């Protein structure tokens, strides 16, 4: 009897305490890598800092870094929800199912999953049209290569990565018909030693331009050691390797989105959304094109950035065939978002197979 009463009192007290503190919105972030990776997770954390700065005392931000994708992610997300987060951003593709599972158990908490496609009443998804940035890099890559061999360090065979390879290839091929892609699947987002080895293997096989879809700057370091190899920054600017070997970069800018969504939760206007913004909305940035790129190539690249931003040009504009030669996009036709979101095929001209 006494114990029950005690517990009841405690519960009431807790309830009061929680409602008293509820004015402060708690925003949580789950990261796949360390905040110091200099790439993907680093940029998400910059977004978190921007939220903290924008709202000051009104918000409290928490994060957990280096959370493995898979079962452990579910535990980490649950724990963050239990700690009273009002809004949780899960920032990697592999958190998709864990996020949806946890969201079912916490209907009052809002969830935002980056780069996924499964939504629910309290789960939004958001991603950036990185393929627009890759179109620009592909253009520069095709112009810069002298050996006509472009190396590509890919992470996991998911649509996001395959889309990037295709987009870069289309635009490299358009300016340089002899170009050839050599692709290495690293099966990791972040493993500097492996990325360095992959970059070295590509360079040894004649690649003089390296594109990467992994998060560390190890390929830049390998390119620098090799001397005459061009690279691009991935996720963040990686400007410490500019002006060479890094000649440009694709930068993720999540801050405006994070601030807007946090604001929506505070106002009570948050709704499930499926956001996919590109260069135009500022979610994808193109890092400064360095002077090692010839002026005319730089001008062409910047013109493409303009057109992509205004929507005048779509990175996947036909005629484009699939790898097996079958037609995909007719002349002038552009790809629809559904196909792009689930892209699981190479386009014509790329050698090798997409791993299953």
């Amino acid at each position, binding site marked *: 009897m006494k114990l029950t009463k005690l517990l009841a009192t405690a519960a009431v007290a807790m309830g009061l305490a929680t409602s008293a503190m509820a004015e402060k919105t708690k925003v949580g972030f789950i990261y796949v890598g360390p905040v*110091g990776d200099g790439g993907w997770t680093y940029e998400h954390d910059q977004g978190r800092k921007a939220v903290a700065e924008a709202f000051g005392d009104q918000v409290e931000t928490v994060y957990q870094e280096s959370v493995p994708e898979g079962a452990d992610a579910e535990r980490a997300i649950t724990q963050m929800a239990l700690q009273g987060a009002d809004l949780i951003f899960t920032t990697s593709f592999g958190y998709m199912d864990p996020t949806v599972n946890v969201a079912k158990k916490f209907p009052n908490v809002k969830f935002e999953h980056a780069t996924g496609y499964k939504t629910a009443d309290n789960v939004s998804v958001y991603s950036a049209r990185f393929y627009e940035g890759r179109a620009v890099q592909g253009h520069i890559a095709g112009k810069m290569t002298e050996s006509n061999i472009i190396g590509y360090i890919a992470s996991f065979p998911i649509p996001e990565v395959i889309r990037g390879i295709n987009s870069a290839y289309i635009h490299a091929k358009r300016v340089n018909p002899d170009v050839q892609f050599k692709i290495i699947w690293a099966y990791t987002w*972040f493993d500097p030693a492996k990325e360095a080895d992959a970059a070295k293997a*590509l360079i040894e*096989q004649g690649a003089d331009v390296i594109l990467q879809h992994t998060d560390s700057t190890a390929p830049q*370091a390998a390119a620098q050691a090799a001397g005459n190899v061009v690279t691009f920054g991935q996720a963040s600017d990686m400007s410490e390797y500019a002006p060479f070997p890094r000649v440009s970069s694709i930068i993720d800018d999540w801050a405006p989105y994070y601030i807007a969504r946090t604001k929506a939760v505070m106002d009570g206007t948050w709704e499930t959304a499926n956001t996919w913004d590109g260069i135009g909305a500022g979610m994808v940035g193109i890092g400064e094109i360095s002077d090692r790129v010839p002026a005319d190539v730089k001008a062409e690249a910047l013109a493409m950035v303009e057109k992509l931003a205004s929507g005048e040009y779509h990175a996947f504009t036909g005629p484009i065939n699939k790898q097996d030669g079958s037609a995909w996009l007719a002349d002038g036709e552009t790809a629809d978002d559904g196909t792009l979101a689930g892209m699981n095929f190479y386009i014509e001209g790329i*050698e090798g197979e997409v791993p299953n």
Partner: protein
Amino acid sequence: MDLSAISPTLLIASLMVAATPLLLAAIGELVVEKAGVLNLGVEGMMIVGAICGFAVSVETGSPYLGILAAMAGGAILSMLFAFLTQFALANQVASGLALTLFGLGLSALMGQGYVGVKPPAMGTLNIPVLSDLPFVGPILFGHDLVLYIGLGLTAAVWATLKYTRVGLILRAVGENHEAAHALGYHVVRVRILAILFGGACAGLGGAYISLIRVPQWTEGMTAGIGWIALALVVFASWKPWRVLLGAYLFGGINVLQLNLQAAGIAIPVEYLAMSPYLITILVLVILSADKSAAPASLGRPFHASH
């Protein structure tokens, strides 16, 4: 598919680089285990070595001072393990795991100011004439100093264990610490020295990654090499040359699979990605059929009062 794109010379040269951190960490752990101590903290000592080496070489501008600092860093961290297991008689498995977790956290803390910084380069030892020889030049004479230290260390550990009095005492302590104690050898002292040696080797291996192989600092950059080193010692039946073989095999197939992918070979990528682990395990399991057992006192605590 274009296999001619793969140059055997460059392949061998880069497999030696890829294998060196693994070799260094494993040869150190071999000595520790030969002394009868199981230190599962290799990963932690490596990553601490990686950041100590990186930080000191950035601050001083000298990669060689960095290498020394990495060895010191690994050894100092291993002293914690030595204290816990040799004086406090704590469980070795738990202490080793704790050491890894502690090392990962500590290195992340120490490395906060070093993200995105470039370390001073350690040049290769380009021996005139010899390193210009075709084929053997780049393989045998075109590397950095630490790679040769790794090879020399393997030979030295092998010779010491096999031919010297020090090696005999170390093995005696590992095989039967009661008997070694009865003969008047200071079991705890021998083990502490072995642990320090293992820590220094692991630290050196870590610094090889952050200073030469990658070279940059990022959290968690050893990415499990310490764990592979632990497995390698067991599969190599506690024999130095087999550790070398295993490390080169693992590094070699890892580099080879990346090269095969780039050359567009038609084997599914997933098989290529798992091949380094499978083949290394397979070869070493076959080699270990000679039933060389683990040191008999491995993992058992010792106290002179027993």
